[in-house]
Structures are given as structure tokens and as C-alpha cells.
């Protein structure tokens, strides 16, 4: 049985005295864009919401930070760092970034021809943003422009 996170988190913070968080519940069908070519010929973009940054970049702050980092897809694992409001989920990612930012598997899948190309830059953000309005109005449009600039055909979005 999978965990019911919305219910558990709502109850946990109500028990701590917070007003219940209003989760996003879509009231319209998902939009849809068909792939224009097979995955094996597509240029893939990547977003991880794990708060990844590369050595030399700024870390994230934890008050609805909607900024985005572009990381070269060749970034060495030793140069990857993470900052996220729920740092308790980063214990393993800080030891092996691939469990949340799968650059090594994607390079392998590129070599195996499963994907056509991996974008030169991949993106990360700190997904623990409470303001759905700021995600919609600031983060999502910035990511759209970023993915367009990378000329991706499709994008894998990895949630933490």
C-alpha cells in the first residue's frame, strides 16, 4: 500500500498547530503534447526538484525559493551539492546524487541508444515551495524558457 502523504502531512502539521495546507488538486484534464519523434531520436531535458547545485553556484534558500540552476550534464558527481527545506530526504542523495539526479543512468541510456541525446544543461530547483502561484507564475515559465533554450524534444521531471 503506497503512503498517503497528503493526508499524513496535513495531519502531522495540524497536530503541531499549523493551519492545514491546501494541496494542489487539478480541476482540469492534463494538457497533452505528443512526441514528435521516437525517444531514441529525441533530445531529452532533465529537471530535478531536489535542490541540486554545482560547486561554484549559489545554494537555495528555504523560503519559497523559485530560482532555477542550470548544471552541465557532464558535471562530476564530486561537484554536485544539494540544499532543500526537507534536508532529511537528502542523506542518500548527498552520498550518491544519482538516486535523485540520474545523470549517470541517462548517460548510459544515451550510449545504449534508448534516448537520442541528453541536453547539454540539466536543471534543478528547490521543489519545496508552498506558493502554488509562484510556481505557476515564476518557476514554471522560467523552466519553459530554459528547456526551449536547450532545444529539448521532451523532458523528464524527477520529484524529490
Amino acid at each position, binding site marked *: 500500500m*503506497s*503512503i*498517503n*502523504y*497528503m*493526508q*499524513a502531512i496535513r495531519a*502531522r*502539521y495540524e497536530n503541531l498547530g499549523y493551519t492545514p495546507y491546501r494541496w494542489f*488538486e*487539478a480541476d482540469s*484534464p*492534463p*494538457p*497533452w*503534447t505528443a*512526441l514528435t519523434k521516437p525517444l531514441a531520436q529525441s533530445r531529452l531535458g532533465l*529537471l530535478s526538484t*531536489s535542490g541540486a547545485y554545482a560547486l*561554484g*553556484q*549559489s*545554494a*537555495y*534558500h*528555504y523560503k*519559497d525559493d523559485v530560482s532555477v540552476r542550470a548544471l552541465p550534464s557532464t558535471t562530476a558527481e564530486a561537484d554536485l*551539492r*544539494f*540544499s532543500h*527545506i*526537507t*534536508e*532529511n530526504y537528502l*542523506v*542518500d542523495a548527498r*552520498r*550518491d546524487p*544519482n*538516486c*535523485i539526479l*540520474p545523470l549517470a*543512468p*541517462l548517460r548510459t*541510456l544515451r550510449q545504449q541508444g534508448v*534516448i537520442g541525446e541528453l541536453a547539454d544543461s540539466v536543471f534543478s*530547483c528547490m*521543489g*519545496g515551495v*508552498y506558493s502554488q502561484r509562484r*510556481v*505557476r507564475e515564476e*518557476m514554471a515559465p522560467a523552466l*519553459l524558457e530554459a*528547456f526551449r533554450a536547450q532545444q529539448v524534444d521532451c*523532458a523528464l*521531471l*524527477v*520529484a*524529490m
Partner: protein
Amino acid sequence: MCHQTVCLVARHLEANGIPTLCLGSALDIFNAGRPPRASFLDYPLGHSAGKPFAPADQLSVVRAALAGFEQITVPGTVARLVNDWGNDDWRAEAGATQGQDTREARDETPQFQLPADRDAALASGAIRA
């Protein structure tokens, strides 16, 4: 929260012409947020792309998730991946309705993983002293 963010981002990208696939470990948040295509991996949060130091597991997770780009034809489908964490020890804590606030303090100071990262960001001009 991260899963909610990816749902919102996926819907925006998809509405503007970029096909997306969300990979994550909170099935209920995906079901509520209804991204166009999603893969659900029943692992503890923080491991959406596989177990640490387990390249074969990571590769199979990412490969199976990406297959959704060509296999999912009904908008809003959440495909369940077959990978198994190996035990259920994590579930009680993950689903607990009692417990401490595990979030870090919310202010606008960048929270570097290591003190030396701040020096590197200062040196590159990414932040100012």
C-alpha cells in the same frame, strides 16, 4: 511538496508544447496533481531515481520511467514501476501523522551543503559577501 511542484511545472511545459514525464514516489500527490504522464516508484522519498550506490536499480528505474513517453497514451496516466525497495521498514515513519517538524528554518539565506561551497560561490560571483 516537490511532487506538487513537478505536477504544476509538467502541466505548464506540456501546455506549451514540451512533452513531459514525471518520476516520483508520492502516488497520492501525482493522482491529485494530474501531470500528463507519470511513473510511480514505491520507494522512500529522496530516491525517486533508484537506490543509492545501486547503478543497476537506477538504470532500470530511469529506463522503465522513460518508456512511459511511448507507452502512455491516456493523459493523466500514472504508471507503477515494478522495482521493490526490499523492505517496509520506512513506511511507518513516512506515513506518520504525529512527529516533529522536520523542515529546516524558512528564511532567504542560501543554505550551502558545505561551508566551502559558500566560498566557491563567492569566488565565482554567484553570491556577494
